[in-house]
């Protein structure tokens, strides 16, 4: 079956195409070259006057795993306010502060997103994370495995293990948990909290292992480069949310020593201590450093006003922030000599100085980081706000007068304490397409996603242009997933199953001898029980296929 998407204005930055009218052809779920004369075209979708982009990719969204499920169970009051009754092909479910997996898949797809990456998969919780992602319909999924707070890694590092051995352990983890990358959260801090430390600076010593977050970051960035994992080490920095944490963020960048590093939800890590309230924007300082460091990429973690729930692996900081919980209930867990988690509901209020300034800092970062290939559109869903507010966020980026109008309604000191009002930059559609499609595919090493060239998966979005970008991006005319029309004008038309994306770098399996011994002495399951096979992950993840992306050694 050959489908033609005819006459659309194609925006495909990965292939250098900016608003060029052309036809796209799709066969068996894949974009193909134009057919030869006389070849039969089975179906034509008229896209004349419409904008055509690849399916959007969210590289940091908490969609699956224990902490998200705790958040769902924690907050029935918000689910009750956001019911999603059975409708067409959709089963009944709820949205709310932490949406169900069904709602997540339906709403992402309806909005033109076709791939989502869970950024905090605890290795011991990987099966559940894959299962939750597997029950998230339509979209493709992948996950970053959490390392850097697990006792095995910390004792390796503390014992002066060779980098080669750390590389093997990182690679083994990617295989065993079926992950697409590695993330570190508050390097060493989650573990330090189990030893009763309440904070850990980048050069602070872990109370038990006597290693520093800087050493953890050094070893893990080296491993990622050495193994050739396409996605840089995904880093949730130290001191999340603490005024003055910009210093930690700059130190974190330095700790990478020029190796690739991705700083996630940077907004929560760009705070100064100036002013009467000892809370200020350090966005300019951070953005300058990012602009000057080509090895660094970032996603913003924009906050948007309203009720949300923060789900994080960072048990240390979540315990510290729990006093701000609203409603006042929260869960903190220490997890299996592996990591931790903290689930704290939160309500961002526009008349609150701190929240208003957080909002402004996020937008400052978006506008001050110059290269759209290195800054990604995220709200750290659901932590800064729900992913379904992305169209609103896009409008804030594309429309300066709208942005300043919103700013004028916030706590007045948000404007005076930040440079936002003076920033004139407006994102173009092309830049939006980079930051939501081409760039995430590139930084994740997804060769066949995020672009519209022949051979790419037919994940395609057709938008009706609208003077209000929020309207345009909320309910695209057509969304194709692997060639199937899954949504039209915001309504789900077909419920399909997405693939799982993983990387599997080469490594020396000799590491398993050491791991087997560690599991026997300290774990409560065997090494064999821990590992997830390719076959098993497709059952857990209900995936028609496992897509393994290439690792290229970067020495």
């Amino acid at each position, binding site marked *: 079956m050959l489908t033609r998407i005819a006459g659309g204005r194609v925006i495909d930055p990965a292939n250098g195409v900016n608003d060029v009218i052309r036809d796209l052809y799709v066969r068996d779920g894949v974009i193909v070259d134009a057919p030869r004369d006389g070849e039969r075209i089975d179906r034509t979708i008229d896209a004349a006057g419409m904008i055509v982009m690849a399916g959007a990719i969210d590289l940091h969204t908490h969609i699956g795993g224990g902490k998200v499920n705790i958040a769902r169970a924690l907050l*029935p*009051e918000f689910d009750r306010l956001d019911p999603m009754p059975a409708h067409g092909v959709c089963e009944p479910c709820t949205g709310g502060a932490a949406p169900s997996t069904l709602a997540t898949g339906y709403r992402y797809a309806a909005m033109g997103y076709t791939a989502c990456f869970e950024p905090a998969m605890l290795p011991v919780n990987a099966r559940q994370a894959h299962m939750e992602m597997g029950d998230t319909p339509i979209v493709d999924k992948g996950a970053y495995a959490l390392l850097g707070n697990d006792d095995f890694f910390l004792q390796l590092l503390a014992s002066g293990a060779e980098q080669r051995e750390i590389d093997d352990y990182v690679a083994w983890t990617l295989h065993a948990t079926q992950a697409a990358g590695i993330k570190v959260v508050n390097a060493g801090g989650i573990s330090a909290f189990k030893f009763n430390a309440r904070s850990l600076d980048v050069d602070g010593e872990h109370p038990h292992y006597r290693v520093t977050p800087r050493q953890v970051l050094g070893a893990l960035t080296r491993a990622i480069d050495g193994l050739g994992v396409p996605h840089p080490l995904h880093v949730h920095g130290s001191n999340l949310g603490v005024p003055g944490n910009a210093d930690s963020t700059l130190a974190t960048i330095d700790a990478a020593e020029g190796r690739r590093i991705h700083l996630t939800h940077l907004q929560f890590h760009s705070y100064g201590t100036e002013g009467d309230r000892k809370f200020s924007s350090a966005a300019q300082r951070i953005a300058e450093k990012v602009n000057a460091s080509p090895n660094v990429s970032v996603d913003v973690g924009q906050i948007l006003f309203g009720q949300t729930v923060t789900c994080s692996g960072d048990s240390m900081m979540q315990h510290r922030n729990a006093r701000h919980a609203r*409603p*006042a*209930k929260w869960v903190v867990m220490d997890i299996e000599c592996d990591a931790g988690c903290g689930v704290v509901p939160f309500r961002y209020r526009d008349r609150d100085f701190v929240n208003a300034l957080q909002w402004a800092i996020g937008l400052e970062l978006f506008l001050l980081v110059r290269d759209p290939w290195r800054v990604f559109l995220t709200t750290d869903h659901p932590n800064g706000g729900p992913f379904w507010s992305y169209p609103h966020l896009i409008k804030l980026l594309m429309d300066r007068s709208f942005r300043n109008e919103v700013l004028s309604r916030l706590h007045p000191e948000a404007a005076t304490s930040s440079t936002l009002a003076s920033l004139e930059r407006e994102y173009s559609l092309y830049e939006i397409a980079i930051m939501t499609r081409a760039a995430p595919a590139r930084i994740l090493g997804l060769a066949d996603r995020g672009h519209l060239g022949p051979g790419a998966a037919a994940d395609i979005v057709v938008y009706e242009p609208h003077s209000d970008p929020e309207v345009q991006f909320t309910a695209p005319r057509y969304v194709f997933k692997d060639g199937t029309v899954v949504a039209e004008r915001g309504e789900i038309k077909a419920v399909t199953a997405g693939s799982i994306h993983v990387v599997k770098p080469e490594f020396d399996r000799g590491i398993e001898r050491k791991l087997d011994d560690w599991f026997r002495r300290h774990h409560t399951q065997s090494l064999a029980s821990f590992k997830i096979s390719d076959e098993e992950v497709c059952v857990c993840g209900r995936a028609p296929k496992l897509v393994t992306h290439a690792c290229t050694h970067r020495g």
Partner: protein
Amino acid sequence: MSGLRLSLRARPPARVDGSALLPEKLQGQTLDAIRRIALPGWNEFHEVGELFEVSGEATDRLQIDQLDGSFDRLGALATAGTLVLRGQAGDLVGEGLRGASIEIEGAAGDYLGCGMRRGRIEVRGNAGHFAGSGRAGELQGMSGGTLLVRGDVGDRAADRMRRGLLLVEGDAGDYLASRMLAGTVVLLGRAAGNAGYLMRRGTVVLDQRPAQMLPTFNANGRQDLLAIQLLLRSLGGEGPRFSRLAARAGGFERWLGDLAASGQGELLVSF
């Protein structure tokens, strides 16, 4: 009698959500239109005309007779008017009430007035468990208005209560005012076990000393507590038993707790 009258004549096979039957919603509609209103049951909708005899005129007063406990959420979220319920009124009557008056000439089920914010509910008979509390999974119970029960209340009355007034002429079950956040409870009968468990703030006036007082409440001596005396006097209009308490109470034995929570609540036993 003025107003609209519904009289139950057919028992639905499973519980029905009666929250559509609000005076403010029905007011001004024709009887035929009211008969066609569909109430959600379990996988089926029941027209009002199938379940009830409908008579009178739809004003701001609605009376529902012959209730047998099969309707939940009657009067939920009501903002205005008067709802009179006769018989067994079911669960969640007046849930989230925002201003109307509900009179129950009979008994109420569980979760009476749960999460109510304003308005008034009066029950001639008994109420079930969790009167004046909040829905499962939420942090706050009743946060305003007056809830008056002439009979007894079950367990956990005023659980998580945040504001407002709960008045009970009869006895209370276990865990009266558990996790109470603020507000006022006056109980003329006897409280069963563990009154005030995990209470944080708020005031519970007891006409009779409970059989046992939790060890996490400490005696704070005998006090006059003028504000409470004034409150009790203001309740004269709620009936002679409240007037008698106001007249009799010379002062209060005051207990502070629950020290297992923040400990700023008070149980006041009149003497």
